[in-house]
């Protein structure tokens, strides 16, 4: 394999005892598109960070253009021609295209005269190379998302990149935009640029990739020629493991319908029209790929982006939801995805965080009753097993799993009828994950209806009594507990079979 521009051999990397990568080998030839696939948490991001020099591997060796690299750091990776492009282009929105490109190309010299003509010409040349028809004088904020991505590709090409890593470049693109991007990739392949391509959209992967490497739980399942596989093979290799054993059991008995959603839509957040029901005692998993509209739907139901059409019924009564406050008053609570940002107030104590949403209930007169508040917090600290120095501890000082429990405790204190959980175990370690799973089940057993959004397929299948699958803002499939298989859910999420929304 002497023609490899990039060659990773037996890379291992662990973080605080968690093995993120175990003896993973990966190589990339010039002019090749090598797809890297795997579930969330399979180790894709870690591998990319090793390639770009952000993480140094514990073991294994890295060769670039056939030469062994001892200590790869981000600066060196850049000099060796390795560049990464992420979902969100990292451009300066208020500068022009040519300025953005020039910033990467020109050596920094604060008082040097700028040759605007030269800048523009260089930018135009690079843009032509990626086949983009973009005015170098246009401002980045005026460009569409794929145009911005093309600008970013042009920029990294200008620095002489030979290895381009693309992490979910098409997640936020429309089909037409995707083909424009693919066209650019094909052109650059001719020039001998190698691509590491990460995407959850399998049809796209098959269209572009020459080879595919599948990661699972930090190990490489294997590298395959794209032509030798079909989608179901690939899905089996990505998921392939026994799932349900470690999850709490199914719902004992489902009660009456607690939440009914009829044709609810919100144009602004890309949820056209959704209808479903949640029953008391039931955990319903909401599956789908990143960008399928799951979080958007939850935000509509909780009134963050209020619905502009349809009806929402809680316990059979229609409720009007215009803000999170009205949603909470109607008995719908939402545990947001990014808990550090939205779920809790990091700078406030655990005590305050727990009682924040229910001030009207515990302090009917507006005065804070410290004893009542302390009792309430202590009760939840005990009930949920929150590990903390005391109820006065700042929420920001807790570990991820415990922060999540505090966020959960806040809504439990509000005693909701419907609980919407968005990625409740993201970034939480295994032990805490189990506890949170058990907790969710016990809440459902108490009569709440739970809607759980999760990208973790085993979790969705293991926890849910019913699974709804979303794609492109619409519900595209429903699975009962018995009939849910990871292949089936994944296929529905990926849109295999091709039916459009």
């Amino acid at each position, binding site marked *: 394999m002497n023609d490899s521009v990039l060659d990773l051999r037996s890379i291992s990397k662990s973080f605080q005892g968690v093995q993120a990568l175990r003896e993973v080998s990966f190589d990339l030839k010039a002019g090749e598109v090598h797809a890297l696939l795997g579930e969330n948490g399979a180790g894709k991001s870690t591998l990319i960070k090793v390639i770009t020099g952000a993480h140094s591997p514990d073991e294994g060796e890295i060769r670039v253009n056939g030469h062994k690299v001892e200590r790869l750091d981000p600066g060196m990776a850049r000099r060796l021609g390795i560049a990464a492009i992420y979902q969100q282009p990292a451009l300066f929105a208020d500068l022009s295209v040519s300025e953005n490109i020039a910033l990467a190309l020109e050596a920094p010299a604060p008082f040097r005269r700028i040759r605007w003509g030269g800048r523009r010409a260089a930018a135009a040349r690079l843009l032509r190379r990626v086949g983009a028809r973009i005015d170098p004088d246009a401002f980045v904020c005026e460009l569409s998302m794929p145009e911005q991505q093309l600008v970013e590709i042009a920029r990294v090409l200008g620095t002489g990149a030979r290895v381009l890593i693309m992490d979910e470049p098409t997640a936020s693109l429309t089909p037409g935009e995707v083909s424009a991007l693919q066209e650019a990739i094909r052109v650059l392949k001719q020039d001998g640029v190698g691509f590491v391509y990460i995407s959850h959209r399998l049809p796209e992967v098959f269209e572009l990739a020459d080879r595919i490497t599948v990661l699972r739980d930090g190990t490489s399942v294997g590298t395959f020629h794209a032509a030798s596989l079909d989608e179901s093979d690939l899905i089996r290799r990505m998921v392939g493991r026994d799932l349900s054993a470690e999850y709490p059991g199914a719902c004992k008995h489902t009660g009456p319908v607690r939440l009914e959603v009829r044709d609810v839509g919100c144009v602004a957040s890309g949820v056209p029209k959704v209808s479903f029901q949640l029953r008391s005692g039931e955990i319903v998993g909401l599956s789908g790929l990143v960008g399928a509209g799951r979080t958007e739907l939850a935000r509509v139901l909780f009134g963050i982006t209020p619905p502009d059409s349809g009806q929402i019924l809680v316990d059979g009564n229609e409720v009007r939801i215009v803000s999170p406050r009205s949603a909470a008053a109607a008995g719908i609570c939402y545990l*947001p995805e990014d808990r550090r940002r939205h779920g809790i107030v990091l700078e406030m104590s655990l005590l305050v965080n727990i009682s*924040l949403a229910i001030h009207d209930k515990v302090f009917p007169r507006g*005065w804070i009753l410290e004893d009542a508040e302390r009792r309430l917090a202590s009760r939840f600290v005990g009930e949920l097993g929150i590990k903390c120095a005391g109820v006065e501890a700042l929420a920001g000082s807790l570990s991820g799993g415990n922060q999540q429990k505090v966020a959960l405790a*806040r809504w439990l204190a509000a005693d909701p009828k419907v609980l919407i959980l968005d990625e409740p175990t993201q970034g939480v370690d295994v032990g805490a994950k189990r506890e949170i799973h058990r907790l969710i089940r016990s809440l459902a057993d108490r009569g709440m209806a739970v809607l759980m959004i999760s990208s973790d397929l085993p979790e969705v299948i293991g926890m849910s009594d019913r699974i709804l699958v979303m794609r492109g803002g619409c519900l595209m499939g429903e699975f009962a507990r018995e009939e849910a298989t990871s292949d089936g859910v994944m296929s529905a999420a990926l849109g295999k079979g091709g039916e459009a929304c």
Partner: protein
Amino acid sequence: MAAPDFFKPRQLLALGTATAPVLVAAMGVTMIILCRQIDISIGSQFALCSVFIGLAAQKGGGPLELVALAMGVGGVMGAVNGVLVAGVGLPSIVVTLATMATWRESLRWWREGEFVRNLPETFQWFGASQMTGQWLVITAGIMVLGCMVMITQFTAGGRFMYAVGSDPEAARLAGIRPMWVTFSVFVSAGALTGLAAVLNAVRFTDVDPKTGTGLEMQAIAAAVVGGVSVAGGRGRVLGVFAGVLLLACVGPGLVFLNLPAQWERAIQGGIILLAVASDGLGGGRPRRLREQHEEKKRR
């Protein structure tokens, strides 16, 4: 002690009386800063309120009427800020910069710099003796301070201010209405500024329409020295009290130590810098720029 005269009761009483209006105004500004906003228009609000109560006193308004009038006028001016900041969503620094100029200029256009004179006997010191009047002013200041301590520490409303200042979005998701909280805070600050104007005006026999220039800076400085984080969500009212006292003592302190008085501003500036560097006397956790920067990146 270097200057025993400084601690004579009469001097302290005068100092306290002169400081009480600043304290009351600083309380309002503190609430606003806790909500991650700023108000630099309170100096102009203060002047406008002062003129209003002067004119009302000429017409024979009693003390309680004057207080109600001043707090009402201040509240309305605060509401203008509140609507523009919370309702329309404009940056508070710009909004209050605009209202600061607007109030001040309309006052100049209206009064043409003319003092409000010929105030009735009953106006100065609420018609009481100087000593009683001074005590009244100080007591009012202390009562406002006490109320603020109660509000910030023991009411849900105070809690909401801290929550909104720490993270408006997280607060909104917890069912709090940040717009409403922000609006109320601007209105309350305006009303407190009106009250401060009364406490200040009764010290004199006439009303200077140029009064209150720089009051906003005194109030903000006191809040910052007292440990209120300009990034919102952190700080204590008692810290601000300490800040007000500390800054107020600089001027008289210099006089009694027979040092040149022009050093007052410089020393106050130094205190502010020191306070910001150690992130306040009021016991806030130190938060360095780098930390804030990292937090921003994470978001």
